């Protein structure tokens, strides 16, 4: 009860001094929610009582504060969209949105934020929707603390958890997203922050990033997604302290970088992914202080990548450390710890005396002929790799760490 009084007070002072608050209860056969939204004036607060509201195509076109008490449910019965917000400054909190419609050709969303600004979606739960939250041509919006779940089983009849398109300055914080096509999807989104989210068990990417520049994502966990995280056609992206875990599968990545430039990848953990980081057409990326452990391939770097710096990372027990398809690789690799390193350190300065070649002969063979993977860890393959180490001939001459570190770095 305190909450009811307190919240309008806070918002009341900050916006309009005479803002009122409303309360809405479910009534059979009546669209009480839309009537409340229509009746309320700009800046008003609406409290929604517990219960289930079977209403679709709700519209909020003014600034409202909509707060659910004990998580009332808005159920779309799998028909149409649930809520479209065009009113700037609107806050939605504590509601459950479920069962939006599905469509093969329309982007049907549970909550759509359209052509507006300063909208906040907080602590809501979204269940079994097509698109859960769709942010379109908006800016300065915050989506935080939501739990977004679906049970999508195929790419066709599934859509993204948080979908942002042509927006900027968004904050996507502390959400938990699972079972969608892409957990978080950014297309033409600039200067935004993605922080503390957990995106897991999505049938495509945990995070999908297209043409989105100057964005930052921190402290997120991407776990067990069918294809990991993809960052494509973007520049100046900062990726700090994220965890990429258990993205196993035939075309799975921890992190897929395609046509990325001037970006910074630091302090991340890549563990048990088929491919830790895959770089294609990516330039001037700095990768430092990351940990790669127990991945199939720690890094796959295509010949189309230039001027990347890979330094001060730990490579621990990866089946293959680095693979590449080219011969000449213009990237700087130095001062990493490699658990495959077999060199020595006679002058005891902590740096190995002979360079480490993280691309093994066998990884080259597998690049050319994937079926050869079935000979993995066979005696013959070990012999080949040893022979190649003694007399290098097939592995790229330039791809080496001249100063491999003897002990793992403390990250």
């Amino acid at each position, binding site marked *: 009860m305190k909450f009811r009084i307190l919240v309008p007070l806070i918002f009341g002072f900050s916006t309009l001094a005479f803002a009122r608050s409303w309360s809405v209860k479910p009534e059979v056969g009546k669209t009480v929610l839309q009537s409340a939204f229509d009746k309320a004036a700009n800046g008003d607060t609406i409290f929604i009582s517990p219960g289930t509201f079977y209403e679709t195509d709700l519209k909020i076109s003014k600034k409202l504060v909509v707060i659910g008490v004990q998580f009332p449910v808005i159920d779309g019965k799998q028909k149409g969209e649930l809520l479209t917000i065009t009113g700037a400054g609107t806050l939605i909190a504590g509601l459950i949105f479920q069962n939006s419609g599905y469509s093969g050709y329309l982007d049907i969303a549970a909550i759509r934020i359209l052509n507006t600004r300063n909208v906040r979606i907080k602590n809501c739960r979204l269940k079994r929707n097509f698109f859960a939250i769709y942010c379109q041509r908006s800016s300065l919006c915050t989506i935080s603390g939501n739990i977004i779940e679906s049970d999508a089983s195929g790419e066709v009849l599934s859509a993204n958890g948080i979908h942002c398109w042509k927006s900027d300055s968004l904050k996507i914080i502390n959400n938990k997203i699972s079972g969608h096509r892409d957990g978080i999807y950014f297309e033409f989104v600039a200067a935004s922050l993605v922080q503390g989210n957990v995106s897991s068990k999505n049938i495509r990417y945990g995070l999908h990033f297209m043409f989105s520049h100057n964005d930052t994502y921190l402290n997120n966990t991407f776990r067990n997604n069918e294809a990991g995280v993809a960052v494509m056609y973007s520049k100046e992206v900062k990726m700090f302290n994220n965890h990429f875990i258990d993205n196993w599968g035939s075309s799975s990545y921890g992190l897929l970088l395609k046509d990325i430039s001037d970006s910074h990848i630091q302090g991340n953990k890549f563990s048990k992914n088929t491919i830790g980081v895959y770089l294609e057409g990516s330039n001037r990326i700095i990768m430092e202080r990351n940990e790669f452990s127990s991945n*199939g391939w720690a890094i796959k770097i295509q010949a189309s990548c230039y001027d990347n710096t890979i330094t001060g990372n730990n490579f621990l*027990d990866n089946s293959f450390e680095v693979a590449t398809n080219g011969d000449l690789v213009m990237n700087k690799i130095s001062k990493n710890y490699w658990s495959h390193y077999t060199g020595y350190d006679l002058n005891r300065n902590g740096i190995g005396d002979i360079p480490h070649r993280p691309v093994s002969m066998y990884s080259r063979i597998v690049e050319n*002929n994937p079926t050869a993977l079935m000979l993995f860890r066979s005696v013959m393959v070990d012999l080949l790799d040893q022979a190649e180490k003694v007399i290098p001939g097939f592995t790229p001459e330039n791809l080496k760490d001249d100063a491999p570190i003897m002990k793992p770095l403390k990250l």
Partner: protein
Amino acid sequence: MNKMVKYVMIDILRNKMVLGYTLLLLIVSLSVFSLDDNPSRGTISLLNLILIIVPMVSLLFSTIYVYNSTEFIELLVTQPIKRSNIWTSILAGLMSSLCIAFFVGVGLPVLFFGNSQTGIALIVAGLILTCIFVSLAMLASVSTRDKAKGIGLAILLWFYFTIIYDGIVLFTLFQFSDFPMERPMILFTALNPIDLARIMILLKLDISALMGYTGAVLKDFFGTTWGFGVTLSAMLIWAFVPAWISLRRFKSKDL
């Protein structure tokens, strides 16, 4: 029958070679587990031990043992004992004593330190490999009367299954790289017990994930419980067939 197995086993276990083999395995597995705090890395180190040392010792020791037992076999053949009894007793005696050696040397440390699905796969693969190579040794030693030739044949078999075969497979993969080779690869794998053992262990380790990269065929075949069962059965066939052929030959062999 049981009495014969008993005498063969007493004779083998009295042999210093078997004791040395057990100690070697024990020292290697204990040092692997005590030096490395990561049990899965320890398992990978043991993988090589199992794929190289176990077949070699099983083959050579068994071949030499059968040749050294020529007198014993001749003595027994003049007695009212079935020939097949004599041969299967030697086979069973060799298999069980070498399996005991392997279990003490590798099985117990694995169960103690890295008891996991991988560990179990490792032990099962090692035990079956032991049986397979004892079985092949019996075939090698029944094939020729000459001890030197027999041991030579055993070494050749070991070399073939350990290295040469995989070399041929790799060569073939490259020769036919324009064709889908996943299905033939399943056959290639089945034709070498060491490859089967390796895949069986790796399925519980890292290859199950990497395999997807090679295409759906291998993943769908080996990546399932059914595939594991097929792998296991193929290995059992490898253990059974050479022993069976050697028994047939021994039955009509002149002594």
